[in-house]
């Protein structure tokens, strides 16, 4: 990858590293299960899996503090799990059931949790970017000393409202981290076909917003970059841009024929750069964990995911009256 790697690796304990392994694995297994349930017709509509990108959210959540906010696009399952939202509630939303985070009314693309400071799940490409800056505006206004992680894709990074937002975030020194999850594709459009210059992290320069490219397949590099960005924002210096270079292994959504890239390209990334495998081998070679330890984690994760699927199948559909609720406050 072309990313300029963040050099400073945080000093990290075996326990922490194991935790990241577990967190990333939870997202991966959860997404695989969601894919299965989609195939069984239990999940409908659009369903965008996060497989391949797990290190991004897990690394950045490791840099966040309680009370910090986050929001993203429709590709949101991983963000919710990393933010500590309940897999049962997320999966039940995917199946459109009453115990889902939005009572089944939002679906895969539209979930929210006030408790976990997760502000959605946004279906319109780029729309979450000014909203993220708005959350930061509120935090600054209320003197909360909180930071907002505003995630968006390489495709979204071309929307006009992103640059309107950069300008205002810079003028007003808003504590917002713009996390560009550059997974190299916006649906079928490779980044090089949609962007006039190869790098996104420099796109704040004109506004005086510092930016940094990060290897998004390396959870520790992401965490380190996140900490730097968080420190910048929290100290009142205004916004920060992280271009996290990552890769999605699956199609854009469940109905993507994916003819725009080769199988080999995907395979190569999986084999050589997979974030979970990387941490796994770090743990094993460093003798921080044994095969048995990791097996136990795998088993635990599988149980959580299976339980969420059962929960999501058993939860009833929302009552008919729910059609008419929550339209006005």
């Amino acid at each position: 990858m072309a990313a300029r790697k963040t050099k400073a690796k945080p000093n990290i304990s075996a326990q922490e590293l194991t935790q990241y392994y577990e967190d990333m694995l939870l997202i991966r297994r959860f997404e695989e299960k969601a894919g299965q349930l989609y195939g069984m017709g239990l999940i409908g509509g659009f369903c965008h899996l996060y497989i391949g990108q797990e290190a991004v959210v897990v690394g950045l959540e490791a840099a966040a503090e309680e009370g910090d906010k986050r929001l993203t696009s429709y590709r949101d399952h991983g963000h919710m799990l990393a933010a500590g939202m309940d897999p049962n509630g997320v999966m039940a939303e995917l199946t459109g059931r009453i115990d889902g985070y939005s009572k089944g009314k939002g679906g895969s693309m539209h979930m929210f949790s006030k408790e976990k400071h997760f502000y959605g799940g946004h279906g319109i490409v780029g729309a979450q970017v000014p909203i993220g800056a708005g959350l930061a505006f509120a935090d600054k206004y209320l003197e909360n000393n909180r930071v907002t992680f505003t995630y968006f894709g390489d495709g979204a990074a071309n929307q006009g409202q992103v640059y309107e937002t950069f300008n205002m975030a810079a003028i007003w020194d808003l504590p917002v981290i713009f996390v560009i999850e550059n997974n190299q594709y916006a649906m079928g459009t490779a980044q090089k076909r949609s962007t006039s210059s190869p790098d996104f992290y420099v796109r704040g320069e004109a506004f005086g917003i510092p930016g940094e490219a990060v290897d998004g397949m390396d959870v520790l590099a992401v965490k380190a970059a996140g900490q730097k960005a968080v420190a910048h924002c929290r100290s009142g210096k205004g916004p920060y841009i992280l271009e996290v270079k990552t890769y999605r292994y699956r199609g854009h959504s469940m109905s993507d024929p994916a003819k725009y890239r080769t199988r080999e390209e995907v395979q190569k990334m999986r084999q050589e750069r997979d974030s979970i495998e990387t941490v796994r081998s770090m743990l094993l070679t460093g003798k921080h964990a044994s095969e048995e330890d990791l097996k136990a984690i795998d088993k635990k994760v599988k149980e959580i995911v299976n339980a969420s699927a059962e929960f999501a199948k058993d939860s009833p559909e929302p009552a008919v009256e729910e059609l008419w609720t929550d339209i006005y406050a």
Partner: protein
Amino acid sequence: MATEILMPALSPTMEEGTLAKWMVSEGDTVASGDIIAEIETDKATMEFEAVDEGVIGKILVAEGTENVKVNSAIAVLLEEGESADSAAATSSEPAPQEASEPAAETPAPAAEAAVPAAPISPAYDSTPDWPEGTELKQQTVREALRDAMAEEMRGDDTVFLMGEEVAEYQGAYKISQGLLDEFGAKRVIDTPITEHGFAGIAVGASFGGLRPIVEFMTFNFAMQAIDQIINSAAKTLYMSGGQMGAPMVFRGPNGAAARVGAQHSQDYAAWYAHIPGLKVVMPFSASDAKGLLKSAIRDDNPVIFLENEILYGRSFDVPVLDDFTVPFGKARIWREGSDVTLVSFGIGMHYALEAADKLAEEGISAEVIDLRSLRPIDYETVLASVQKTNRCVTVEEGFPVGAIGNHLSAVIMERAFDYLDAPVINCTGKDVPMPYAANLEKLALVTTDEVIAAVKKVTYR
């Protein structure tokens, strides 16, 4: 000759103001650009400059006077050597008041658009879309749309297609399949995800002599671009006094697909039909998709072309003709009947036709009209039908407030009131954002059963 200095309008909405302060006195010589007074509006205090040079002959409105009407004389300006007496004479002439608002006095010419005047016996065009005996083939709506674009692109080099994933990916919904191969990257153009920008670029290209077809991946995303569609594309012909307009098509799937939730499931028919300067069409069948899209590409106005994802795969008869078009403003009667008129368009036709089938089994004969184009609307066909059946139910997927059905009801009430045996009922989508849950989504959409129930209500069964 002495001239009057008139109270200026200092904002588009100003009707009167306070003459706060005179900066000159009678007898002073002023040159153009000199500040002669300060005038207060409700919004600000503005300095008022002399336009001509001369001598202030007489001040007609004293400093501090409030509610001075725009365009009333406030002072008299003398040419060099003129006397103040002649000025007095001038000032006694009535000031040309209210010159700024002639429109308020003159009634606007009756709008030609919405409701044509003829009261009864609407004459409607019932000619079939293609001559009898024409060879037909089965085609999906998807294929018909592609053929329409390809045919028009072959015939006119200025027609091009732009949008997200239209070229290399062959269209997010595969409508532009094969077009890149045939017409090349100059005319089939992938854009970044920047709707507002590329819609604006297409508007500019249309001003510049091209005929763009803009594909929105879905019309939900056209909301990013709606300012360019309405403020730039729809209004420029008018604003330029007819000099230049935007001959272009905005097309893409509109309305609910399946289970894609609130932000991806909205019917914009009534939104765009609201706008003078736009034409709006919403085909149901493949032949209409083809014939109307060809007309849209040739039309010299911006056309909103509303497709439907669920209909893309449906097959219909399409005439095998070299150049088949369907005109705007001509409804299609899908089924003749005598007891009730069902009026719909787009996917609404699915419910209307299904309801008509079921009603027939119960001995209720429904006439089913597909409006096809929503601007212009073929009122005549609807009115003629209502005069026959005396009852009408409209069917559409959009929200109930400000629906197309509301408008039709009003027109029917105005023009065929005496023919109605029951109030017109509008069947619409529910007044809620689209839910994701399967059971709720079904309830949010208009249903065949609701159409049947409405028909029974208006036929008192």
